[in-house]
């Protein structure tokens, strides 16, 4: 919808926007330097697991940054956004001083702007497609910082506008899981008038947003605020409910649910299957982050324990690895090390996370790979053996394949090892639906345009389809699924013979 050129043109030609464009010359706009996100000083922030690193830009900074945007005729940035936010419109609203209007624009297409403004890899998405980058070789407009600013402003203003919902149509639908895919699906379906229930296996709603991404990057209170909005819109939440276990899909059909959205994520940790990996003190990043983020194990009044390592090795180079290593620092590590088998250029983690990690004193041991772990007499890990890697020919992923260097083995003293080498799709749902088509990797096969699975009333999206992606792609899937499930159900309703 918002990629439609006619629509974009009509929005762009509104009087206020035309006026705003002529207020400042483009030359002056492009002369302004990109805003710097104010940050908590590294030596302070490493002491607090629960204090955000990025402090957010001020209203003045936001207004100035917004004025950099030239409100392009062909806003390529929108094409770079997986949910096609009307980027120039929200930025121009900020420039015009209508921050709540900007927030409302974000919410037209993005159910969780305060989340996305914090965790999206904008440098690979909208910002990489900004005119400043594509045509002028300058720093892009800070779209992500502005998104966060507008969303935070709205939350602080207390005048959060709850999106309008259609009159209830009485049709029950359910989601399996409560990560970003399911939440954006639920938000859209409730807007269409459906009776939506979100089923979550854990005791908290939010999926990775709660159990994975740490407080210093995404405070739970922000996720809770967005959840509250969904509640106000009428979405129902059931925690401690494993679809396929607590009740079967047939049970839920009997209770009147007519269609399902599967957003069960890719939550299964992978290990490397090397000698000594089951010693105590070696755990998956999921376990480590869950203990801290979901169970609050870092605080004294929590019953859940966590090992506070002094010499911590984190295996991997993705966001999960960065979140783990930075958490280890905050829990008191003297040495917090990233052990990654490729070089920094191949690291899948967000650039900002790598930068922050370096500032905080994380040691990067790139082009290294673990071979074996050793333990003390109690079975607690105390040492590991690694070898160095070189880069060979590009592999299937297009990245250069790491190859071990002969005779490069060395040892390292460690007292905590966190394995963050990837996750696999959660097999629970596929295992209880024999007719559901899955790939050899265990992801659910969907018709890409519709997110519809091989079982017609089941749609799916997010990591269970993609095998591991991003918050925004998961949310985009949820939206697409909602739109198509709506169409599917409306057809079914107008052709009632198909309903039992």
């Amino acid at each position, binding site marked *: 919808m918002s990629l439609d050129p006619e629509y974009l043109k009509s929005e762009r030609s509104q009087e206020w926007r035309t006026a705003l464009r002529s207020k400042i010359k483009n030359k002056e706009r492009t002369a302004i330097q990109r805003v710097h996100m104010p940050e908590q000083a590294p030596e302070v922030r490493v002491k607090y697991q629960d204090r955000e690193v990025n402090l957010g830009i001020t209203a003045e900074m936001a207004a100035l940054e917004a004025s950099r945007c030239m409100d392009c005729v062909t806003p390529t940035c929108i094409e770079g956004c997986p949910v096609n936010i009307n980027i120039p419109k929200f930025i121009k609203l900020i420039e015009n001083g209508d921050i709540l209007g900007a927030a409302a624009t974000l919410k037209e297409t993005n159910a969780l702007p305060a989340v996305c403004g914090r965790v999206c890899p904008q440098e690979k998405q909208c910002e990489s497609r900004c005119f400043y980058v594509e045509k002028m070789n300058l720093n892009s407009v800070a779209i992500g910082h502005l998104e966060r600013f507008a969303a935070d402003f709205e939350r602080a203003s207390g005048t959060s506008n709850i999106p309008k919902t259609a009159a209830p149509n009485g049709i029950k639908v359910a989601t399996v899981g409560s990560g970003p895919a399911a939440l954006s699906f639920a938000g859209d379906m409730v807007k269409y008038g459906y009776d939506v229930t979100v089923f979550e296996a854990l005791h908290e709603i939010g999926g990775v947003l709660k159990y994975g991404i740490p407080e210093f990057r995404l405070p739970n209170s922000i996720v809770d605020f967005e959840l509250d909005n969904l509640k106000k819109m009428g979405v129902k939440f059931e925690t401690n409910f494993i679809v396929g*276990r607590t009740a*079967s899909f047939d049970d839920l059909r009997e209770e009147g649910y007519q269609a399902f959205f599967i957003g069960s994520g890719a939550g299964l940790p992978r290990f490397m*299957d090397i000698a000594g990996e089951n010693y105590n003190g070696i*755990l998956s990043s999921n*376990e480590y982050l869950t203990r801290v983020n979901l169970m609050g194990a870092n605080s004294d009044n*929590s019953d859940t324990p966590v090992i506070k390592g002094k010499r911590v090795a984190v295996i991997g180079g993705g966001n999960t690895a960065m979140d783990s290593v930075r958490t280890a620092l905050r829990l008191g590590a003297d040495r917090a090390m990233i052990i990654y088998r490729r070089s920094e250029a191949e690291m899948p983690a967000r650039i900002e996370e790598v930068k922050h990690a370096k500032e905080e004193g994380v040691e990067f041991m790139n082009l290294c790979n673990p071979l074996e772990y050793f333990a003390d007499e109690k079975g607690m890990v105390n040492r590991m053996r690694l070898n160095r890697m070189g880069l060979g020919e590009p592999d299937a992923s297009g990245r250069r394949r790491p190859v071990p260097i002969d005779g490069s083995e060395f040892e390292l003293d460690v007292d905590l090892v966190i394995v963050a080498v990837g996750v696999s799709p959660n097999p629970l749902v596929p295992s209880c639906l024999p007719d559901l088509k899955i790939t050899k990797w265990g992801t659910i096969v969907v018709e890409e345009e519709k997110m519809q699975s091989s079982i017609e009333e089941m749609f799916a999206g997010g990591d269970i389809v993609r095998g591991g992606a991003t918050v925004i792609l998961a949310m985009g899937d949820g939206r697409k699924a909602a739109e198509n499930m709506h169409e599917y159900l409306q057809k079914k309703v107008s052709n009632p013979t198909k309903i039992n």
Partner: protein
Amino acid sequence: MSNKIIEKEYFSDKVIRFVVENQKISRSRKAGNFVILKIGEKGERFPLTIADADPVKGTITLVVQIVGVSSAKLAALEIGDCITDLVGPLGKPTDIELKGTILACGGGVGVAPLLPIVEAFKKAGNRVVSVIAARSKDLIILEDQIRKWSDEVIVMTDDGSYGRQGLITAGMEEVIQREKIDECIVIGPAIMMKFASLTTKKYSIPTQASLNSIMVDGTGMCGACRVTVGGKTRFTCVDGPEFDAHEIDFDEMLMRLGGYRAEEAVASNKYFQK
């Protein structure tokens, strides 16, 4: 799903039986399944086996032994209180078939998870011989219920204060010597399962052990519960909790049970090597 406690019964001062309202789980659970509980906002997630269920009343039965903070927090709840979070049923159910003669062995609080399995095997038409064991008389639990579903029950106590004096393995040997056993199931402290498993291995009796690994989520998400079976790493919560006992690396399992190993080793050594 209120998770309200409607019955509470002390088997001993450390072992308590709870009947808890949860209609959904009472209907969907099978023998061998467990639940994860969390008590209070700051509570820890910990697993307990579903010892029994009544789908008509919509209740499940849990038997807990007080060993640390979480079990003590549960024990402190009274009739009418609600368990903050309760999720399940988790784990693969026991493979119940008509196999012939089943040797069912339970040590300590392990008798609680054994009960639904004994019942299911009996109902499937098997001959069931149960051996239940504990350190002393007051730690023998659920004897009457086990009797109800067993053709024969042997009770062993460490100190001889009840039943026969000796280790569970002595009771097992006796049965194995005198009749053909088609399958054995053992549930109890890891150290007991290790020795029980060594016993049946001598006689090549197919044996399942139900493991009590440390868990966090119970849904396969964290790997805290990993255990080596047949040389491969498996997750107890989703691949188990029952595994082929002769393939389990019990020493690694004991090591992974972690910090409390020292205290438990003292107790078990006394129990098994005396």
